[in-house]
Each structure stands twice: as structure tokens, then as C-alpha cells.
């Protein structure tokens, strides 16, 4: 066996409850193992224990044994174990320690005393294997997020480790780069028998590649089995860990739960629940090009998440009907021909036209570097356009990517007014230290900070902009946030969310805007834009081929339970 946990119990220093509680399992060489579990239930700690950071780096109380490739982690520290296990954490920025990509890839080999020839060969091979050979002479601080994550993976793989441990490596990547990374891991696993241990929240992205799923709950192994058995277990014991496809099948009363889109479609086709030939052209298409739009409040009944197909179509028709009436409806935020051009550099935004009506909710999507964050900064007035203008009907609150950046005081009560804390459900935590809050609670506190109280400076915001608010969140926390955003939209606040997560986008937004290369390339109802694609589409939409604009499992299940609806749209 390559990795063995034997009755491992671990407490972080000064912690009362164990982060790992009597964990035992064995992994054979060449297995692709997925670690599942809600936030704060021990996935990261388990990975740290596997590579020796626990207990050597973090301290604390450790019981039991962990053996990695024959080395007992109590006797060998992470420096020795690092030669057998490559490790990739969530934030690539902290894993790149050298200035150039070549030096980064060479560091581990040089540290372990490999000869110059072995270092040169190792760097070349890993660069070719990961497709980063063109980056070798680039500076690490010039790389995009996706490139940084690939280089960090390359640095972890340069010594040809037997095991690769990955902690949510796709959380900062767009859907395309995330899928590429998972495909790459599968290739490493199949071609070189590299054992993969991957902790991930978005299970639908990688469940199909996994041989085995270990689920953790409060530091204990709650399930250990193949992906099919995991989905069956999750449906009964931990619905928040269900993939959207599995949830769709469960709600529609279908069995077994599908591991991926292909299997789901095969099952539906065998039961004659899918049309033989999907004609995506039959579905209404999103408007292409920079199309500012407005949504009448009558169409924004945010409580109707699981409305029927007719209502979805009606909503989409209504949304499209007002696309042309851009100036007749009052706007909360209007961007007119906004350009952001860097001196001696590229244009980040290229003539963006975008209008948000009060009560409207928009999902802003696109690849890493498409200009989403820059657009939100312009909306909030943190940046000034080099051309064009931004008109705001009131204050625009912007929540940036890292909630920890907002927390500077020692008491929650000092960070935000009590009114704002109550609005995000943190009224009872006013005396706690913000650093002690969980990831989801920190996010809510940051939201309270930027929105402030109605009586505070600038009053209540008329627009709420959020930049990648779901990074590192589990499905339950995302659902809570989506619910909160829908509530705010219902109350008349315009909401715009930049996200890479189509499931979250579908849950919180009525309208979707796709950015590419600083331009709005598609703008339309979410039911159309997130229904017909490969990458920027929810799993439910991909399973149903975009039928009826169903994005969420609840909507898809409704369609499946009324097969006539599928025939109509096909």
C-alpha cells in the first residue's frame, strides 16, 4: 500500500475537539481517491497529516500512525516525505517561491541533491507533461491564476512522486482550467500510476475520474467506497454532498444516481426520457454581443426558484422583451462604453455596456483574466475608466475575493454595525474574534462590513457586487449565500456576482453575462445562457441537453416527471 492511516487522532494546539478522529484507511498504488466533506470537517488536516505537516509543522497532539510509501510520518518530517509526495494547496500564490518558472520547477530537485543533469531532465519532462514548456522562462508573478496552479502542480510533480495530494486545486480556476486540471490528474494517474488524493467541494467536476471516495464528517471517516456507493450514501446521510446530477435523479425518483453526465444521459435515454437527438437550436438562444438589459420587477419573483418550465420560458421571454428598452427603465448602475487600458499593457475592458435595474440579479462569468474583477471594481468606483463612464444611482458595495482582508479588529462588533450583523445572521457572534469564525461566517461578516447599516455612511447600497464569493465554500454555505442574495434582490437591491460556478450562478441570478477578453460576448436570461453550453452550464442543463432552460436539479426533476414537456421543447 502507498498510504496508510491507522487510528489517527489529531488535535491542533489548544483545540478541544479533534480535527481527525480515529481515521483509518489504506490506499493502494495507482488509486484516484476523492476526499469529500463539508468545510471544516478535516479534509485539509488529513492531507497535511499524509505529507507530515501534521504534526511536524503545525504541532498539536497526534496519535496513531500514518505511513507514506513505507515511511512513518512520526519519524520522517515533511522535507523527507516531500520526495515521495507532491502537494498542491488551494492558493498557488503561496506555493510559488522562486521568481522564474524554471527555477520553481527545479527547486525541489536541487534541494534534494539531484545532479544538474537530473534537474535539467526533470524540469524539461514535467514542463512537457503539463504543457507549460512555453512558460519556463517566464516570471512567476506574470502568470495567470490557471498558469500559476499548473506551475505549482509541476513543482509538486518534478521529483516524480508516487503520491500527489491536492487540496481544492480548482477553487480559483475557471470551469475550463478546472476541467483541464482534473483531466491532467486522470492522465497522470492512468499513464504513470501516480496515486492521487484530491480534496474537492465541487464533486461533480471530478467524481467521474475517481476510483474511490472517502468522506469525512467531524474528522471521522463517514463513508469509504466507490463513487456509486458514495452517491447512494450521500443521498441518505449528507444531501449537501450530493452532486447536482444525483440530486436531479433522486428528486425525479430515478436510480441509480449517475456518477457523471454521460452516465446520466445514458440512463435517461435507456428509459426514453431524453429525445433521441438533442436539437439545441430549437431552444431560444442568448443575445450575442454587448446588450444592456433591464428586468421588470414583475419578472423577478426570486422565491420561484423551482418554478415550472412555462414560468421559466415566460420569464426568459419577458427578460428578452425588455432588452431593447434600455433607457426607459430606471437603472441602479449603468456602464456606457467602459474601457480600461493599462499603460504599456493590454486593454482589460473594451467598451463594456451594462445596465442593472433595481432588484435585478446578474451572474458575471468568463475565463480567468476575462475582466470580471476589473468590471466590478469600476462598478464600485475603485477604478476610473480610461474611456466611457459609469453612472450609479447610489452606493455600490463591493465584496472582494478574500473575506479575510476585511477583518482587522479583534471583535466582530467592531467590524460592522449591529444592524448589518443581524442582516447576515451574525448578531449572536458580536463578541467573538473574527479570526475564529468559519469560512462561511467570515464571508457573511465581510458582507456585513461592505453593506454597512442603512444609517451608516452613504446609506444602504443600491447595488451589491460580489467577486468570486464562493471560493472554498461547501454546497450548504453556497446555498445559504444564494438564498441571501435572492432575498436582497427581492428587496430591490441590484446584485451582480462574478463567479466561476455555474451551479451558484443558476441559484442566485436571473440574468447571465459572459465576458471574454474584456468584452461582453453574451448577455441574456440565465435559463438560456447557462443551459446550452459545455463549460458555462450547470450539470442539470448538461444532462438534459439544455431542455426547457432547466438549470437546477429541482427544475430538471420537474421536467423529467412530466416527459411531455421534453417532447415539446425538442
Amino acid at each position, binding site marked *: 500500500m502507498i498510504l496508510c492511516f491507522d487510528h489517527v487522532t489529531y488535535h491542533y494546539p489548544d483545540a478541544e475537539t479533534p480535527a481527525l478522529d480515529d481515521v483509518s484507511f489504506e490506499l493502494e498504488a495507482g488509486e484516484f481517491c476523492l476526499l469529500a466533506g463539508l468545510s471544516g470537517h478535516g479534509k485539509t488536516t488529513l492531507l497535511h497529516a499524509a505529507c507530515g*505537516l501534521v504534526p*511536524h*509543522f503545525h504541532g498539536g497532539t497526534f496519535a496513531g500512525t500514518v505511513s507514506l510509501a513505507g515511511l512513518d510520518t512520526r519519524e520522517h*518530517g*515533511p*522535507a*523527507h516525505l*516531500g*520526495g515521495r509526495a507532491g502537494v498542491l*494547496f488551494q*492558493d498557488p*500564490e*503561496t*506555493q510559488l*517561491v*522562486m*521568481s*522564474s518558472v524554471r*527555477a520553481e520547477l527545479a527547486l*525541489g*530537485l*536541487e*534541494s*534534494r*541533491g*539531484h*545532479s*544538474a*543533469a*537530473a*534537474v*535539467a531532465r*526533470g524540469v524539461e519532462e514535467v514542463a512537457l507533461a503539463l504543457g507549460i514548456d512555453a512558460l519556463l*522562462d*517566464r*516570471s*512567476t*508573478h*506574470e502568470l495567470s491564476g490557471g498558469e500559476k496552479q499548473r506551475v505549482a502542480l509541476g*513543482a509538486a510533480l518534478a521529483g*516524480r512522486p508516487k503520491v500527489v495530494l491536492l487540496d481544492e486545486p480548482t477553487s480559483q480556476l475557471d470551469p475550463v482550467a478546472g476541467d483541464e486540471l482534473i483531466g491532467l490528474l486522470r492522465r497522470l494517474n492512468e499513464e504513470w500510476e501516480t496515486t492521487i488524493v484530491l480534496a474537492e467541494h465541487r464533486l461533480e467536476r471530478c467524481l467521474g475520474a475517481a476510483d474511490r471516495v472517502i468522506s469525512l464528517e467531524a474528522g471521522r471517516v463517514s463513508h469509504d467506497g466507490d463513487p456509486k456507493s458514495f452517491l447512494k450514501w450521500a443521498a441518505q446521510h449528507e444531501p449537501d454532498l450530493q452532486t447536482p446530477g444525483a440530486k436531479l435523479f433522486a428528486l425525479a425518483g430515478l436510480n441509480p444516481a449517475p456518477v457523471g453526465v454521460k452516465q446520466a444521459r445514458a440512463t435517461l435515454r435507456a428509459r426514453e426520457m431524453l429525445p433521441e437527438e438533442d436539437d439545441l437550436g430549437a431552444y431560444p438562444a442568448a443575445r450575442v454581443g454587448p446588450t444592456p438589459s433591464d428586468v421588470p420587477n414583475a419578472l423577478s419573483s426570486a422565491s420561484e426558484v423551482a418554478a415550472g418550465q412555462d414560468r421559466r420560458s415566460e420569464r426568459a421571454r419577458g427578460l428578452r422583451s425588455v432588452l431593447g428598452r434600455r433607457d426607459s427603465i430606471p437603472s441602479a448602475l449603468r456602464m456606457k462604453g467602459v474601457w480600461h487600458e493599462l*499603460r*504599456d499593457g493590454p486593454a482589460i475592458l473594451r467598451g463594456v455596456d451594462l445596465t442593472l435595474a433595481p432588484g435585478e440579479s446578474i451572474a458575471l462569468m468568463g475565463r480567468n483574466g476575462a475582466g470580471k474583477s476589473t468590471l466590478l471594481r469600476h462598478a*464600485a468606483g475603485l477604478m476610473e475608466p480610461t474611456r466611457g463612464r459609469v453612472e450609479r444611482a447610489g*452606493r455600490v458595495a*463591493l*465584496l*472582494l475575493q*478574500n473575506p*479575510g*482582508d*476585511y477583518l*482587522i479588529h*479583534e471583535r466582530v462588533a467592531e467590524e460592522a454595525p449591529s444592524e448589518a450583523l443581524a442582516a447576515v445572521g451574525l448578531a449572536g457572534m458580536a463578541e467573538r474574534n473574527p479570526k475564529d469564525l468559519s469560512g462561511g461566517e467570515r464571508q457573511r461578516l465581510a458582507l456585513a*462590513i*461592505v*453593506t*454597512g447599516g442603512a444609517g*451608516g*455612511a452613504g446609506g444602504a447600497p443600491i447595488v451589491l457586487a460580489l467577486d468570486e464569493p464562493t471560493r472554498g465554500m461547501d454546497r450548504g454555505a453556497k446555498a445559504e449565500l444564494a438564498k441571501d442574495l435572492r432575498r436582497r434582490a427581492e428587496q430591490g437591491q441590484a446584485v451582480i456576482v462574478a463567479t466561476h460556478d455555474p451551479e451558484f450562478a443558476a441559484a442566485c441570478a436571473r440574468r447571465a453575462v459572459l465576458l471574454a477578453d474584456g468584452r461582453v460576448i453574451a448577455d441574456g436570461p440565465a435559463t438560456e445562457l447557462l443551459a446550452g453550453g459545455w463549460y458555462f452550464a450547470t450539470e442539470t442543463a448538461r444532462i438534459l441537453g439544455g431542455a426547457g432552460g432547466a438549470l437546477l436539479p429541482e427544475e430538471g426533476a420537474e421536467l423529467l416527471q412530466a416527459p411531455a414537456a421534453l417532447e415539446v421543447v425538442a
Partner: protein
Amino acid sequence: MNTRLLFYRRLASPLRATRAGVGAIWALALTAAALILYNPLPLAALALAVLCAGACVGVGRQLAGTLRTALIVGLPIVAINVLASREGLTVFARLGNLGPFGEGDLTVEAVVYGAVIALKVTLLMLITTLASLAVDPDELLRGFRRLSFRSALTASLATRMIPVLGADAGRLAEAQRTRPEDPARGVRGRVALLSAIVGGSLERAMEVAATLELRGFAVAAEERSRSGRLRLWGPRGSGTRLPGLRAGRPNTRGSARRVGRPWSRHDLAFLCSALALLALALAGRLSGAASFEAYPLVKMQIDAGTFALCAAIAAAVLLPFADRRGIDR
């Protein structure tokens, strides 16, 4: 402050196409020339050439920024020299008796000498900026790893961490700007903000330390000394008998030899440029073509030889940039 402006960036240019060691030697030769020469004309020619070189490398804007800073530094140098120097003979203002500082006579010679020192300081700042922007620090420090692996690695890490920490601080400051009320208001608010910045830096340092630990930083010295002993005492290829190199593991410490990087046209051109610069500076100083004395009266050589020296210095600095073949690596 955007710290990225002062750190190595890869843009295609002949200087960046050279090996880092040659780039560093070239920068050292520029520095030596700036220190050897005193005549303002060759110094000005050198400064102009360095600015042109910066433009060729694509960092002209950053050098212009350094020039502005150098002017701010240079003015006090001139002022202090004028007030402190008592060696000149051409008095242009009398401030009277300054008590313990004696007579306050301001001289033209002190102004000229102060200006020359300010010009030299400006040159050194420009050369340092150019070198830090155009010479790969990792490649340069790798050369020192044979002497002290950890020290060189730590220096590499420091060069990488400064912009990272700068970006962290920028992110934190931006987050505070999105608050409806300024949290840094009052002493308490400022202390809280400062504490958050320090705390964030320490957290970042811990994360980087974990990464370094996993990359074998802690065993680096031990592993390298082991492989060093192997090379000294063992026969070629005896690495296969080392513990840890069991069957199935690649032989990474055997007789395979890394083929060295060939000398490119740019390596040779910049090395020649460095040698020519040193020779010209020394020749100018020794031959008298660049002679200069500030005290007691200003005596500066200005003739055809001086102008020829200026032209030769500018040519020596800029000629390597004329060949732009194979510069993108």
C-alpha cells in the same frame, strides 16, 4: 507603491537574452565606470547611454521614475556640499560667521563638485534599477548556490516575497477602501490596520515556510553534501549504491552530465561591452582625457579626446543592443 515595477520582468531584449552572470558583470562594469570617472562629460554620456539601454530593454518608464527620485536625492547632496565645503576659491555668496562652522562662504567649486557627486549617485541608481529589472535574480543566485545553497535560496526567496507581500498589502488596502466608513480613522484604527498587515504577512510567511519544507529546504544541505561526497570519493556511477536509490528509482546522482548552456552572441557581446567600458574608463582616467579637478579651482578637460571618449563609452554601452537576433527566450 507598485513594487512590481522594480522587479525582474521578462521582456524580449538582448540584455535579457544573456546569461544572468554576464548581465551582472555588465552592470558591474557600468558601476565601475561610474565610480572611476569624475569628468562630468563622460559621466553624462554614460548616464544618457544607460537611459537609452533602459529604453531598449523596455523599462524606460521605470528608469525615468528612478531619475526623478535621483533628482530629489541629488539636490540635498549639492546643498550639503556647498554648505560644508571650504576648499573652493570662487565665492558667490557670503553668509557671515556661522559660529562653530566658521565662515559661511559659498563657492562655485563646491556647487560643481556636489553636482558631480549627485550625477554619480544618479548613475548608480539608474544602473541598479536597470540591473534589477533586466537580470534574472534566480539565475544569478543559482550561481552562488555552490558556495552556500541556503543563503542563495533565501536571497532568491526574499526577491520573490517582496512583491508578493506588496501585493498582499495592496489587496488589504483595497478591501478597506470598499468599506462604507474608513476603519483606519484615529490611532486605534491605524494600529488595528497595521496589526492586520503584519498578521497577514506572518500568515503568508507560514504558508511559504510549509511549501519550502515540502520542497526539501530542511534537508537541502544534508542532501547536497551527500551528493558532494559522492562526487569526491566515489567512482563515476557509484550513485546507484546510495541508500534511497533502490531498483525502479531513476539514477539521479550518477554519471550523467548536464550539457552546459552554450555562449550566445549576446553573452559575448555584453562581455565585450563590459571589458570595453572598463578599459575606456581606466584609459580616460589615466590618459587625462577625462581629467577633472574641482578644488581649489574647477579644471575640466574638454577637447576632442574627451568627446571621443564620450562617444566610445556610449557606443560600448549601446552596441550590444543593436543585434536583436534570438532575443526572445
